[in-house]
Structure formats: C-alpha cells, structure tokens
C-alpha cells in the first residue's frame, strides 16, 4: 500500500511538472497614468482574439477598474503561450479632481472620476500583491522614467519575485528616449514599442512568450 501511494504521488508530481508550463498565467499591465497600458492591452487582445479590453483616452485615469481579457493565446516559434491580460488603472500617490476639469469635464463628473480612480489604484495594488503571475511595466518613453512611483512599483514587483518586462511605449513620438528608460531599470529587459502604431510588436510577443510562457 505504501509503495502504491508513493508511486501514485510520484506520477502525480511528474504529470504536474510536465504540464506546469501550459498553465494560463495572469499578466498584469502596470504603469503610471497615460503610459498607454490600455492601448497595449487592446493591441494584444485584438491581435490574438479580435476583441478589445477597454476604451482608450488621453484623459488620465480613464481605466478606473482592473479589466481582464482571459485566455489570450500567443503563438511564437511553433509554441503557444496562454495568458490572461489584466489591464490595471495607472498607479499614483495623488488624485486631484481639479485635474479632470482641465479636460472639459464637469465638476460632479470629475469628483466621481477621482473617487473611482482612487478605488482603482487601490485595486491595482491589491492585484499586484496577490493576483498576478507576472508584470508588464509600461512607461511613456517620452517622459522621465526616474519617478518615485516607477521606482516604488518596480521595487514592489521585485519584492514579489514576479517576472517583469519593461515596455518603453510611444516610440512613435519624436521625444521618445528608449535608452533613458533602459538606464532607469538596468536590471530588467526593456522592450521598445508603439502600442498605438503597432511598432515592434513581434519582439513584444517574443518577449512575452519567453518571460511568461
């Protein structure tokens, strides 16, 4: 009986190990507001499933709830990787409703948006601590990457021992500086792209398959 139990246990472990690489990984797309997270999530979802994840906007905090696109199967080099893409609200340490007023939004709506934004940031932090298997950290390559929020967020990801890729987005902009992003986080691989224009998406998918497959 003991021998049988041991044998069954060994077979079970071997089977789990054999298929461990085929489990769906939940990949969180993180970054500051307006880095292009939703544009990237939509690009990935549209390329592989035909559907979008959520609306894109130049107004900060357009994404105020984490949105998930499940079972996105990415095929690279004869293999396939299945991920759940989690588009998260932009992380910040401050939200002021008056910033929404600058985008021609009425005060009542601005107050509601700011309240939802704060809840969204808290939700994003919660997902990061408990519910994601890997992180794509998206930065606007035309903006200074040396901000405290970026440093803190990448530090939090590292403390969770999660695999992370840095995406230097918006390389279609003249002011984009990919090297500056790479210099900010030299311990991680930086992938340049334009989610809006679809530039360098082949490398993006190669890296997603390599890091999260």
């Amino acid at each position: 009986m003991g021998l049988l139990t041991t044998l069954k246990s060994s077979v079970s472990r071997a089977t789990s190990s054999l298929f461990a690489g085929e489990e769906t990984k939940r990949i969180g797309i993180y970054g500051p507001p307006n880095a292009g997270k939703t544009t990237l999530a939509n690009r990935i979802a549209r390329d592989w499933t035909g559907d979008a994840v959520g609306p894109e906007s130049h107004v900060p905090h357009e994404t105020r709830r984490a949105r998930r696109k499940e079972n996105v199967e990415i095929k690279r080099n004869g293999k396939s990787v299945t991920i759940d893409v989690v588009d998260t609200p932009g992380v910040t340490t401050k939200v002021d409703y008056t910033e929404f007023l600058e985008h021609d939004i009425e005060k009542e709506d601005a107050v509601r948006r700011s309240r939802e934004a704060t809840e969204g940031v808290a939700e994003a932090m919660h997902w990061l601590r408990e519910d994601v298997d890997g992180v794509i950290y998206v930065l606007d390559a035309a903006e200074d990457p040396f901000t405290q929020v970026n440093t803190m967020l990448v530090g939090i990801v590292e403390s969770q021992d999660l695999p992370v890729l840095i995406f230097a987005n918006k390389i279609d902009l003249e002011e984009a500086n990919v090297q500056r992003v790479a210099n900010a986080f030299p311990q991680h691989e930086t992938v340049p792209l334009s989610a809006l224009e679809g530039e360098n998406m082949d490398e993006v998918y190669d890296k997603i398959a390599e890091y999260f497959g």
Partner: protein
Amino acid sequence: MPEITANDDPDDRALDDADPGREDRDPAPDDPPEDGSDGTDDGGIQLDMISAERMEGMRTMEKIRLILDGVHDGNIVILEEGLEPDEESKLIEVTMSEINPDGFTGIEIETYPGEQSGGGGLLGRLMGGNDANKLTVIGPANRIETLHKDETLISTLVTRT
C-alpha cells in the same frame, strides 16, 4: 545610531517653561493641535523627522498611520529609513482610501534612486542589499513639489497653502 526625531521626546517639553511660546511652535508629531490647525501657528511648515529607532518595532499599519497622520496635519514627514516595498504598497492603498475631493489629495513621496535600480530583486537581497534603507520625504501632494532629484540630492519646494 543617534536619534534624529524632532520633538518626540516628552522630556523635551520641560523647555517650555523657559519659553512659553515654544509649545505652540513645536507640537509633538503624535499630538496634533486640538484647534484643527495645520500644526503651525504662523503659517510655517512643520517637519517630523522620524528616526529608524522609532519605526523599528512598529507594525506596517502603525508606520502608515504615523506617516499619514502627520501628512494630514500638513506636515512634511522625513523617515531616516524608508519603508519596505510591501509597506509602500500598503501606503499607496491606504492613501487612496483617504483621498477626499474637498481636502486631502494624496501624498508626494521621494526617496533617493540609485542602487535599487541595479541591486533590487531576489539576487540583490540575497547579496545583502537593502533597498529600503534610504531617507524618505513624504508630504501632502498639494504642498510639496519635487524640483530636482538625483542619486545624491532631493530638492523640494514646500508651500504653505
């Protein structure tokens, strides 16, 4: 390690006898003024310098409360040693829950960048690196603005608004 905390020693208040106006200017961080003011009597700005020693035995929420209570009072909180990543995550979460459209708009936080960019992660920690041990400045978002920051200097503008 010498304690650099400002005004957290009850014995220090003995000096109040020699300077009757002192108590109003220098309230302890744990004792916000009862009059609802921002911790200053003349529009000045209060700095709470909290030593590593004071934070050492505290739980995460105790640290966060100490920081945010100071910030809510309009003070600039300076930590001799920064927070751990998980504590920073909780600080962001709690800060978000306390933002109020009619008042508190959140925090501005600055810590020196540098070593953590190259020494973070599991390997860095295994090699003995400790990213958290960096002086950290935290203040109300509507009163503190970072003018310049590099690996050796944090320059901030603090307003009295």
